[in-house]
């Protein structure tokens, strides 16, 4: 079976800035593929290239076996797109926006009407279908954009951070819709900076950091990396010069000094506290602060990138 999406050696420069560096990956038909990375990692750039909006500086993209450069018509026909920002025509009403997309994808008029009605009802916009999009709230615009991505029954759905900045209820609605569509056979390319979302929703996740793919893996492995990036942050009433002893504490993976604070990275914060207190007691140190910190996104990505490099180095 042909992969739904195949990306080889994909490179993108913005002027001199290298936004994507020789990216490779494949998305299988029928899977939900997460594309996870912090802000500025290159997610939107990748999605725009895969959907034929941006031209890459190098490399190949094919969608369902059709090369984006050589056969853009077929490479674009089967994809539905939900961009990161609203790009509906604000001077037209919701109905006209939907039918425009249907017409651009060459759907028969009758099918457009049936599908538009169905989607507007699902997304609770049917009563507002004759209103100009200009007056829509942020949530309504997002729902309209989703309908516009689905009107032509795409086989591959691209979503760029579809739940970012939305309330819990809308987030739930959108996630459910994505899993339902996937169950019906739609391949999903889901861009996100939310590790939890990637874990919950995706069959496989690619982690992109600074324009490079750090790892492509199942969510379970991602969870391990998240765990490994937990830490305890302490500061004492006087400077501690030697941190070797801290590194030798049980369950501590790594110790870093950051200003007057010390961070101990560990998978098991709960098991580090007691030895830490004993250490302080022995050295006559008084605690000024003691916090357990979840991983920041950046740290998880750095961790994953390091792991990958250390593997590659062996």
């Amino acid at each position, binding site marked *: 079976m042909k992969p739904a999406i195949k990306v080889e050696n994909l490179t993108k420069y913005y002027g001199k800035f290298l936004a994507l560096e020789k990216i490779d990956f494949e998305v299988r038909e029928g899977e939900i593929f997460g594309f996870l990375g912090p802000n500025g990692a290159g997610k939107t750039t990748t999605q725009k290239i895969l959907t034929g909006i941006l031209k890459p500086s190098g490399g190949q993209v094919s969608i369902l076996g059709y090369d984006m450069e050589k056969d853009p018509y077929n490479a*674009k026909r089967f994809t539905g797109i939900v961009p990161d920002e609203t790009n509906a025509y604000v001077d*037209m009403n919701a109905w006209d926006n939907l039918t425009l997309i249907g017409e651009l994808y060459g759907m028969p008029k009758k099918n457009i009407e049936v599908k538009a009605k169905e989607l507007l009802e699902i997304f609770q916009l049917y009563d507002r279908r004759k209103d100009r999009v200009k007056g829509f709230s942020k949530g309504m615009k997002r729902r309209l954009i989703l309908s516009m991505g689905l009107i032509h029954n795409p086989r591959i759905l691209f979503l760029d951070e579809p739940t970012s900045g939305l309330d819990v209820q809308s987030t739930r609605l959108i996630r459910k819709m994505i899993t339902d569509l996937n169950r019906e056979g739609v391949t999903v390319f889901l861009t996100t900076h939310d590790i939890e979302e990637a874990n919950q929703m995706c069959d496989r996740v690619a982690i992109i950091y600074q324009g490079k793919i750090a790892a492509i893996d199942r969510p379970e492995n991602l969870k391990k990396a998240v765990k490994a990036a937990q830490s305890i942050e302490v500061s004492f009433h006087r400077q501690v010069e030697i941190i070797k002893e801290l590194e030798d504490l049980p369950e501590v993976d790594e110790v870093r000094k950051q200003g007057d604070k010390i961070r101990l990275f560990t998978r098991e914060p709960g098991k580090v506290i007691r030895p830490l207190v004993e250490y302080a007691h022995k050295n006559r140190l008084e605690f000024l602060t003691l916090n357990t910190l979840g991983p920041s996104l950046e740290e998880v990505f750095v961790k994953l990138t390091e792991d990958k490099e250390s593997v590659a180095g062996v």
Partner: protein
Amino acid sequence: MFKDGESRIKTMIQGALVIAKKDMKIYYLKPPVLIFGVLFPLFLFLSFAVGRNVPLDTLVPGMVGITLFFTASSVVPLILPWETRLKTLELLISAPIGVNTILLGDILASFIFGIIISLLPLTLGLFVFGANLVYFPILVLNIILSSFCFSCLGNIISFPPTSEPSQIMMFSNLIRLPLIFISGIFIPVSEMPAWGRIIAPLSPLTYTTELTRFALGGQTSYSPYISFVMIALFSVVFLVVGFALHKKSMPKRVQNL
């Protein structure tokens, strides 16, 4: 899908019609379109015609020519900057239609706008000023061809990849204003000084004015055949040049989305 050229052209025309329909819904009533496409040519013409005793067979063709020229070339260059600014261009670029289809749709919308608005000065000329319509089919064909030609010119004007409509408007007037002075609008070509008669053929608007004058039974310098051929020629050149320029600037435009 694209096995034969015929289905390719059919797909392109269908796509262009979809785009044109969208443009008509959104852009015809935008203030800059009305100001630069309708009011501007009207005032421009009045400021030259009022008070001077312009003969009818110069007045009416001039009015029709200048309106067609400004209206047909005013919608199309504004569309792309707007679509760049609102990012709606993304929707169009990611759809399975080519860039030329999008451009053709915009040209089509502008072309229809030109035809509709040119009926105003024409009605005024025929029924209020009492101009004499001698060759009706020539008038119709002239309006259609000229409107298409000027839309294609407008399409060229919109190639800089800006998202600022006012920039394009300035650029566009920089190109359009000089042209009206060499096109026999205010003085018929036959009455121009020698240097005027040499540069007048370089403007497509010259032929529009000539044909209108001919259709209204006035004196002309070129035969209607030559005028039609020249307008058609200008249209083809403008269309091809416009496609080529946009092809070059489109990646930059999209990058700025």
